[in-house]
């Protein structure tokens, strides 16, 4: 009985992971965009009111982290997308 239970649990875990994979990708993209918009003036994109940006900055730790990670992974973005669609 125990192995079957374990198998089902593992199966469920896997299912949970993969079911949120797309949403997580989308979430990361949105967080990245959010940070990019606020810091756009660094790369020449018109940015929102300076006051607003400065007020939001202190709360943007997560988004800035995501944005930085995104920049690091950028050279391999196709691999990430391919992985998501199970292309080997």
């Amino acid at each position: 009985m125990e192995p079957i239970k374990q198998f089902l649990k593992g199966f469920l875990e896997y299912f949970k992971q993969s079911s949120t994979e797309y949403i997580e990708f989308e979430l990361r993209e949105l967080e990245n965009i959010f940070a990019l918009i606020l810091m756009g003036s660094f790369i020449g994109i018109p940015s929102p009111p300076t006051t607003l940006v400065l007020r939001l900055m202190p709360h943007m730790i997560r988004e800035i982290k995501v944005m930085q990670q995104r920049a690091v992974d950028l050279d391999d973005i196709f691999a990430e997308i391919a992985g998501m669609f199970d292309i080997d």
Partner: protein
Amino acid sequence: MKEFLKPVDGFRVIFVIGKGGVGKTTTSASLSVALARKGYKTLVVSLDPAHNLGDVFMEKLNNKPREIMENLYASELDMEGMIKEYLEHLEKTMKMMYRYLTVINLEKYFEVLRYSPGIEEYATLEAIREILLEGDEWDVIVFDTPPTGLTLRVLALPKISLIWTDKLIELRRKILERRRAIEKIQGERRFVVDGKEIRLASREEEDAVMRELNAYREEIMFVYNVLTNPKRTAVIAVMNPEMLSLYETKRAYESLREFKIPFNMIVINKIVRMEIPEIKGKIRTQEKIISEVKKTFKNVEIIEIPMFQEEPRGIEWLEKVGGMIIGDH
């Protein structure tokens, strides 16, 4: 006295705008003297970095409203100082929050921020907002503004800020929605930065970014509501009977209409009334421009102020000119 100068619904805000050197400060000063004489508790504030409101009143002025005569208070805002103070305050809060995250070299960032485009406009808007927040202390607040270009940008800011804030709120909602969806399946989520664990907020009321966005929206909405309400705000444009001045007034009129800010009166200042043979051509042009102003601005009050032999300075002079503006003489 004109309806758009009286406080109807709470306090009245009057912006005096116009090209550099046409007589905005003199007009604001005269207007406020006349209003104070009528018994309205009046505050006249100079937002112009090139301060000369004090020179007109022949008094030294600073950030704090100073009593000039009964019912009349005047102040000159030190924008430079305000920007500096504002940035210092921000730097402190940012440093505290980012202790454990060295993303940007903050000191360098703040050094250049002082000269960043737009910071002056935001500081001016912030100053206007702060005065409006305590507006109930006064019956009428007269703003003597910097030359048209900067003023129009400042008056446009609330609308532009609202558009930006709404877009960011929309995007933030999407992020929070996705976070909630993931949370439902995987449970509460955390993430670690430099050894510190942070819980990912997924609900609007617990997300600091969303709270900040909403707070900012409310603040801007307050200013926007005051500026676009014809019962609370009036704009007076000052011009000289010259072509350039006329063009600028037309542009200001168009822009203000776009932002739904009322435009109530034009003061044509420094009109030469005497027949002087040497400047006959100039006088003809003046007449032409005055009649064009009357033709172009149909729903706007037009006041003509002649060129005086001496500069109108000091309370007596100001009262005389002020009477002409509010229409009592």
